[in-house]
């Protein structure tokens, strides 16, 4: 059992009674589930996914997205607000929660929009959403461009000590941008997406948040410069947390040479040096969490000319395996660090209790059991998501989720979503 929240890393029995953990240690009782050779950890927590419902049920529904989450070992996911209608009022928050409860695959924590309609002009009614438990607000996909609106949002969110997560992209630098800017974008004739666009926005937001003592979360860090900015801000005592996505520590811009839009994502795949910097940022704790940015798109929207295809890739079902394959196996992270980046740290960064450990008597039995050594090949036709846009088709990875348990009940058993 690996439980970073309690520091526990040893062989143990976990006794589950009803929806709670009853005992951790040598004792045992009731029906026995043999997990010999598997790692038992808190159910994974994803800070960043797109479940597309309401609005784009052709690409994903809350039921299918949370099934993918359960298959990936997650017991809690934070669903971004860029649905249609936008999750900028309490009604959509309630709707998403209700649909998630009906599906029963995974707890869903809706992220509320910062501004009405994600338009960046007027604040959404954060209070209405905060009063029903929303802890994080984001216009993800759309940056809050106005420094004034951003500053007001950070300030206003202090009422609940809530977290503001701003999509980091100075969009005047990324109009029509298609891929990371550099020699490769020039060779491929695709408009470049400069690193500066991300770094300028993060620098601004860090300055604003630090000045106010407000909480800022930086999503999908993709450049070395962003990591340096966050590292410096943390050293100054800013209340900032950050996430990185598996695709940004697994894939580089070289994939774009295929012109297969399955590799098109925002922020874009960067250079090998950026990939390396993200790995180091995770190792030294500058980046707190691994988040999926799971972004399903239907085949007809994604299988287009590169320039016309939307950004985004699937992530929920491969996040754990990529973390183990790309970070743990090469020794970038210890298993405990990796589990922490997928459980306790994201949960803490978003004030999510009941997930991410500790696995202790009296806590909710939200658990995952995975085989860290099992090898499998990613098959787009085998995913539980409604969409197929995984960039890892045919990739052999290590680490297979065997069981996922949400409050004492299997959501995934022997690799099958229940």
């Amino acid at each position, binding site marked *: 059992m690996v439980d970073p929240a309690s520091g526990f890393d040893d062989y143990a029995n976990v006794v589950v009674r009803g929806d709670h953990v009853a005992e951790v240690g040598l004792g045992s009782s009731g029906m026995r589930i043999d997990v010999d050779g598997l790692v038992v950890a808190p159910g994974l927590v994803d800070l960043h996914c797109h479940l597309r419902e309401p609005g784009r049920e052709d690409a994903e529904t809350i039921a299918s997205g949370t099934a993918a989450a359960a298959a990936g070992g997650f017991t809690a996911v934070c669903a971004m607000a860029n649905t249609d209608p936008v999750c900028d009022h309490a009604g959509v928050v309630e709707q998403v929660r209700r649909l998630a409860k009906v599906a029963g695959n995974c707890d869903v924590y809706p992220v509320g929009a910062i501004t009405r309609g994600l338009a960046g002009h007027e604040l959404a009614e954060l209070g209405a959403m905060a009063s029903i438990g929303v802890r994080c607000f984001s216009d993800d996909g759309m940056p809050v461009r106005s420094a004034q609106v951003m500053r007001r949002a950070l300030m206003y969110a202090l009422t609940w000590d809530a977290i503001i997560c701003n999509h980091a992209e100075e969009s005047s630098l990324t109009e029509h941008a*298609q891929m990371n800017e550099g020699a490769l974008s020039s060779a491929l*004739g*695709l408009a470049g997406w400069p690193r500066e666009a991300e770094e300028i926005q993060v620098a601004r937001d860090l300055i604003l948040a630090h000045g106010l003592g407000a909480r800022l979360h930086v999503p999908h860090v993709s450049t070395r410069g962003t990591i340096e900015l966050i590292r410096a801000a943390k050293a100054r005592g800013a209340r900032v947390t950050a996430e990185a996505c598996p695709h940004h520590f697994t894939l580089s811009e070289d994939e774009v040479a295929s012109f297969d839009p399955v590799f098109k994502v925002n922020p874009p795949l960067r250079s090998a040096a950026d990939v390396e910097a993200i790995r180091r940022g995770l190792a030294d704790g500058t980046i707190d969490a691994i988040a999926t940015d799971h972004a399903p798109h239907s085949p007809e929207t994604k299988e287009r000319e*590169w*320039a016309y295809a939307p950004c985004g890739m699937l992530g929920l079902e491969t996040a754990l395996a990529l973390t183990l394959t790309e970070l743990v196996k090469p020794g970038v992270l210890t298993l405990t660090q990796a589990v922490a980046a997928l459980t306790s740290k994201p949960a803490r960064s978003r004030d999510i209790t009941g997930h991410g450990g500790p696995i202790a008597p009296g806590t909710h039995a939200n658990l995952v059991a995975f085989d860290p050594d099992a090898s499998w090949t990613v098959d787009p036709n085998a995913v539980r998501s409604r969409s197929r846009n995984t960039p890892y088709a045919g990739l052999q990875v290590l680490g297979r989720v065997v069981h996922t348990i949400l409050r004492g009940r299997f959501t995934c058993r022997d690799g099958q979503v229940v």
Partner: protein
Amino acid sequence: MGSVIADLLSMADLDAPTITEILDTADGLRDIARRPIKKVPTLRGRTVCNLFFEDSTRTRISFEIAAKRLSADVINFSASGSSVSKGESFKDTALTLQAMGLDLIVVRHAASGAPVQLTRWVDAKVLNAGDGWHQHPTQALLDLFTIRDRVGRIEGLRVTVCGDIAHSRVARSLVQGLGTMGATVTLAGPPTLIPPGADRWGASITHDLDALLPDTDVLYLLRVQRERMDDQCFPSLREYARLWGVDRDRLARLPEGAIVMHPGPMNRGVEITADVADAPHAVITDQVTNGIAVRMGCLYLMLGGEAA
């Protein structure tokens, strides 16, 4: 003889012997244009589709003439007035054409990489007739042909490519082709129109066109688009013309025997003045004429070998 070229997507895929073979083949085919009956039966029974998602009358006509002179059956498919305007996707268009059993698709598309994607969906051979800012290999080949024809060689020539390198598929293809054939290339233009990483293209970069002119054997001018002004790449067409446009005075600074090229269509008065365009140094109409022979050469090498 088997076909020499499978798909023709990028100049980066062609080595020097292949380029030479294409140019030699084109040379052999250009006499057909001088005959009273401008047609040979080489590609009889072959079907070539000109699939144009971006308007380009000049290039389409050039390919159409090339295919017809080789007796191929030619179908023209343009995005406007077709199922594409009714919302059919690129992939479905490709699958539809695939089901019709074509031998070769000449594709022009505003999106970089579209011809590469097309190869995944069709069995027909694919010839890239220009994709976004990415590649335009037959333009580069006809330029190489024209240089070789007029100057007698390519290797060792000093070629200056001037203008909007960043948004030019012609520049990318030509610089690669010239490099492969052993020319020395310099890119000239404002820094805002030189793409990042161009220093790794095997060409040198200058922002001082005037200093370079006395050492230029081939001056290649690129078309400047007004929309680049809207992107703040330069302040005005007038200023562009002053700094980078070639007029009679700049022409006079070229060495004896130098040639001036342009892929067309020209903006007279911007990158090139009318008197330069019509000067004896200018080989711009040769480029157009040679385009047909070079495209015949490409079609022949892609299709002719198999059943001939």
